[in-house]
């Protein structure tokens, strides 16, 4: 069965997707997170391209379902394609998304330089505490509650916090 063509514009679809919270960090939307990498309306058919953060991200199916449901509520049937052949990098998180992360106590990722991050950088580099703003923080664990986060501790305000990994 061919889906009914939609009258929605690409801009309206981006707006709708910007309302969908990330399943694991609901303070930011899928658009803020930069995982929606393309929206296309061709002859009324909607195509959405989703580029996962980490390949083993268990939230992927929830994201795909949420996108389909949000667009279905607007009368559009979306073809959501997961692209694992494309690279997602933390540089794709929008400036607004980074601010929302910080406000919620997640230190946003540092911009990715040409070279991959190193242990020395993570152990000795300056990482800002999202609670008090101090950079007197230390690496507690490279791994955290989800693949995309590390754990750090702020020596100034004595609070642990989650640091988005740069990938």
């Amino acid at each position, binding site marked *: 069965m061919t889906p009914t063509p939609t009258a929605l514009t690409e801009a309206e679809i981006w707006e709708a997707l910007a309302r969908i919270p990330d399943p694991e960090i609901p303070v930011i939307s899928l658009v803020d997170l930069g995982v929606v990498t393309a929206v296309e309306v061709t002859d009324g058919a909607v195509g959405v391209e989703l580029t996962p953060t980490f390949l083993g991200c*268990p939230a992927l199916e929830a994201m795909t379902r949420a996108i389909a449901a949000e667009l279905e509520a607007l009368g559009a049937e979306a073809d959501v394609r997961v692209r694992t052949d494309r690279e*997602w990098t933390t540089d794709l998180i929008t400036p607004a998304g980074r601010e929302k992360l910080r406000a919620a106590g997640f230190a946003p990722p540092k911009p990715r330089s040409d070279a991959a991050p190193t242990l020395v950088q993570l152990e000795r580099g300056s990482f800002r505490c999202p609670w008090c703003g101090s950079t007197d923080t230390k690496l507690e*664990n490279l791994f955290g509650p989800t693949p995309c986060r590390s754990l750090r501790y702020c020596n100034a305000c004595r609070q642990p916090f989650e640091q988005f990994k740069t990938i």
Partner: protein
Amino acid sequence: MPAPSRADILLPLADDELIVGWRNSEWTGIAPFLEEDVAFSSIAQNEIGHARALYEIVAEELGSTADALAYDRPLDEYRCAPLVQLRRMDWAATIARHVLYETADAIRIASLAASDDPVVAGIAARIDREEVYHRMHAEMWLDRLLASTDGRDRLDHALDELWPYGLGVLDEGRRPELRRALEERLDRALPDVEPAVRGRYEPELAELHDEMTSVRRSAPAGARW
């Protein structure tokens, strides 16, 4: 001679990632401390995620599915290296395998990232972004164990025992690179040994295969929850 297919190139890697991910997950809940519970569980999740993405590429070529490749093959069709098959619930051996696997894997991924096939190069580059953190974790533990005499002794013992297995992760041509990288890092020579290569099956793999495929076998039409 025809060029190797994507299945030839990616299946050994996919099988390694699936099985090493499974082995890493065996520390979930029982690692020596909580941080390592989290670390090995997270690494396991990444490795199995890599396996899935790789199986999907191979499945497209073979007209199969990722799940069928992961769970429906008889044991002797798995291409995983003996290193990942071993089950060693000893911390020094765990770190030794982690160091050997991640070092060998970095060499292999770098060569795949330079492939002429954009699909192979693309997935390799993606995987590498995540593997960077696994390598840092292995580095960190290497430093920690090398910092004490007891730690160094245990690690050296485990590394010597697993060294033939570490060599077996790579094709013959890339083994000298692994030796150089590790000898430099450890500041000592590693023994001259016969590598434990793919196609050899450790008894522990049968046990793992049986457990890993049990849900799939119990619900051939597909389990849902």
